């Protein structure tokens, strides 16, 4: 596949001033909300360390925990399926639905089913999947656009965009762009789908080995309706979502929504252990590259990710480029380190969509060393001799961020602690906002392009 040109896509996003400004400010507000929550919890850093350690332990004993989970879930009357890759996942889900004559499915948000491109596959089989998370539904109605953020899928759209889209697709009033009215229109249009669905689908935030149960966190309650109304509930889950014990949930639930949205908890935290009387519950455990990643010494800790989106909200490049520019279901810093392992050629430019300011690492609730992994991917890519082109790309991205002194100051303010372990060449590399700041103490008066032309341009080309 053609490499993703994140920089060019970001250009288009930035050119649209209104959208770019809202996106940037709104996501930064989420980051500030996260900080406020953190400040109210004295044990916050202890919780992050615990979360990171629990995940490390689970991942280093993953096979045993998977077996324990399977044993307990099966004893609870849940049917467990295993999928090595996206195709097998889709085939299994299709077969479950075919066996139950399912024609319509109501589904809550799941990055995994997007990763597997399940919807188009099921559509071919004549099965309609309706997204029930409002943001994800907006994206689905908009010509099946992928989500642009893993927690707030339509965050790149403004109210006017939604008003136009809803007028076109669900007959709402095109002249009313009040978010309350639009959300109500979304509710009214989704309700018949809930009631008519033959099956419900969810993802899962956590699988618990001890009990064979799984946990789904939503704000809309859509996962609970999807799971509790139709007689069939299928959950698709990556194998890395395991944690050993129920008591571990205390750590993760306390961190998740605070990191994601700056709220103490999601409105709904739902624990599914066994099917309701007269209904069936299936879990599809999906590998799709995860077991291979587990063997990558520099990158396996990315499997600790709990998909909170905090690294996106804090990332100056993400905030100013929009999630769609990454060309993957996983955008932002986490996408930058996940995607190259999936397709190095296609995603070779992504590790350069970073100022290396380390802000992602300092907010990550499971303490993934995101910016260090970004650096490792750059090394791998430069060893593959694709550097000159990529340097230019990286330069563009950094330049966009640094062109705004206000934003630049915010980038620097967002750096809580940055690893100083990088070689000097990288710290003082022009792609690195942090290194740049050390060389030019004040926020740059010239744009990055001008600075580059003056200081480094000569020895580059």
């Amino acid at each position, binding site marked *: 596949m053609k490499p993703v040109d994140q920089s060019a896509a970001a250009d288009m996003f930035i050119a649209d001033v209104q959208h770019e400004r809202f996106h940037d400010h709104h996501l930064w507000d989420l980051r500030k909300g996260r900080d406020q929550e953190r400040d109210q919890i004295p044990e916050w850093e202890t919780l992050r360390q615990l979360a990171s350690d629990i995940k490390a332990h689970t991942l280093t004993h993953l*096979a045993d925990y998977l077996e324990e989970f*399977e044993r307990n879930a099966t004893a609870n009357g849940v049917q467990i399926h*295993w999928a090595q890759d996206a195709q097998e996942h889709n085939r299994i889900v299709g077969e479950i639905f075919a066996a139950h004559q399912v024609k319509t499915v109501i589904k809550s948000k799941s990055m995994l089913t997007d990763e597997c491109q399940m919807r188009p596959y099921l559509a071919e089989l004549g099965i309609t999947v309706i997204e029930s998370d409002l943001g994800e539904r907006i994206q689905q109605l908009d010509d099946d656009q992928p989500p642009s953020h893993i927690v707030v899928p339509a965050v790149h759209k403004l109210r006017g965009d939604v008003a136009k889209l809803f007028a076109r697709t669900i007959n709402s009033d095109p002249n009313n762009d009040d978010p309350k009215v639009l*959300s109500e229109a979304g*509710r009214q249009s989704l309700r018949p789908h809930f009631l008519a669905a033959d099956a419900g689908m969810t993802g899962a935030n956590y699988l618990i080995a001890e009990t064979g149960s799984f946990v789904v966190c939503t704000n809309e309650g859509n996962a609970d309706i999807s799971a509790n*109304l139709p007689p069939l509930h299928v959950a698709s889950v990556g194998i890395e979502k395991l944690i*050993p014990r129920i008591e571990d949930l205390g750590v993760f639930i306390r961190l998740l929504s605070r990191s994601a949205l700056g709220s103490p908890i999601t*409105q709904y935290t739902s624990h599914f252990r066994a099917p309701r009387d007269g209904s069936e519950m299936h879990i599809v455990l999906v590998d799709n590259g995860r077991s291979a990643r587990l*063997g990558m010494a520099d990158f396996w800790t990315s499997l600790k990710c709990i998909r909170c989106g905090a690294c996106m909200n804090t990332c100056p490049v993400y905030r100013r480029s929009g999630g769609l520019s990454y060309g993957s279901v996983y955008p932002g810093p986490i996408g930058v380190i996940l995607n190259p392992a999936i397709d190095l050629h296609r995603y070779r430019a992504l590790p350069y969509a970073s100022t290396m300011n380390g802000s992602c690492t300092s907010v990550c609730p499971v303490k993934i060393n995101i910016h260090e992994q970004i650096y490792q991917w750059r090394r791998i890519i430069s060893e593959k001799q694709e550097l000159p082109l990529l340097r230019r790309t990286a330069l563009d991205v950094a330049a966009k961020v640094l062109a705004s002194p206000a934003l630049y100051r915010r980038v620097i303010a967002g750096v809580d602690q940055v690893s100083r372990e990088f070689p000097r060449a990288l710290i003082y590399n022009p792609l690195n906002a942090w290194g740049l700041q050390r060389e030019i103490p004040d926020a740059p008066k010239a744009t990055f392009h001008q600075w580059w032309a003056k200081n480094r341009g000569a020895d580059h080309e």
Partner: protein
Amino acid sequence: MSSRDIILAQVRVNQPPASDLPKVPLFDANLPSPWPQFQASLQRMGGEILDCPEGVHLNALLAQHFPQAKIIASVVPEVEGNFNVVQGEDPHHLAEVDVAVVRARFAVAETGSVCFTEQELVINALAYLAQHLVVLLDVNEIVGNLHQAYQRPEFQMARYAVLHSGPSATADIEGTLVHGAQGVRTLSVIAYQRTPCVV
């Protein structure tokens, strides 16, 4: 070899060197008084507290609070509704319910959450298809934080256990908070002691 065995084998080969599972403390020294903390947290999450003045019957309180409500489905003995929720019945019937009245198993002060299992809800979908949810809570059954909550047996025993922290909400359109996204539009908690079982 089955996909299961292939995945497990590959995971085993690739697992990094083992690290230990840490103990999780309860972090419950010096927690604030549960009931005031619960009320503050619930309000933060968009829920509300309904005061039931001495001598006022819950039926009257609800009639006053939800004057438009036509169908009230109560699964608690303290409130008389006009809709029968029968265990094992098709949940789709519940789509017409205006107000559902249920009792919380327990609550969490830190997050303003109330916990239900399939036992309290009778039909799980009741708590989502109704337009409004009214929750009776015994204030002696509030734990301080989520660590304490996860010590409770419900999470080991129940088929379905859920924490509701305020009503259904979305901020998917321009970050504007709207209540009543797909589930209930309001969630109200009434402090009301559990009626002792009559044997």
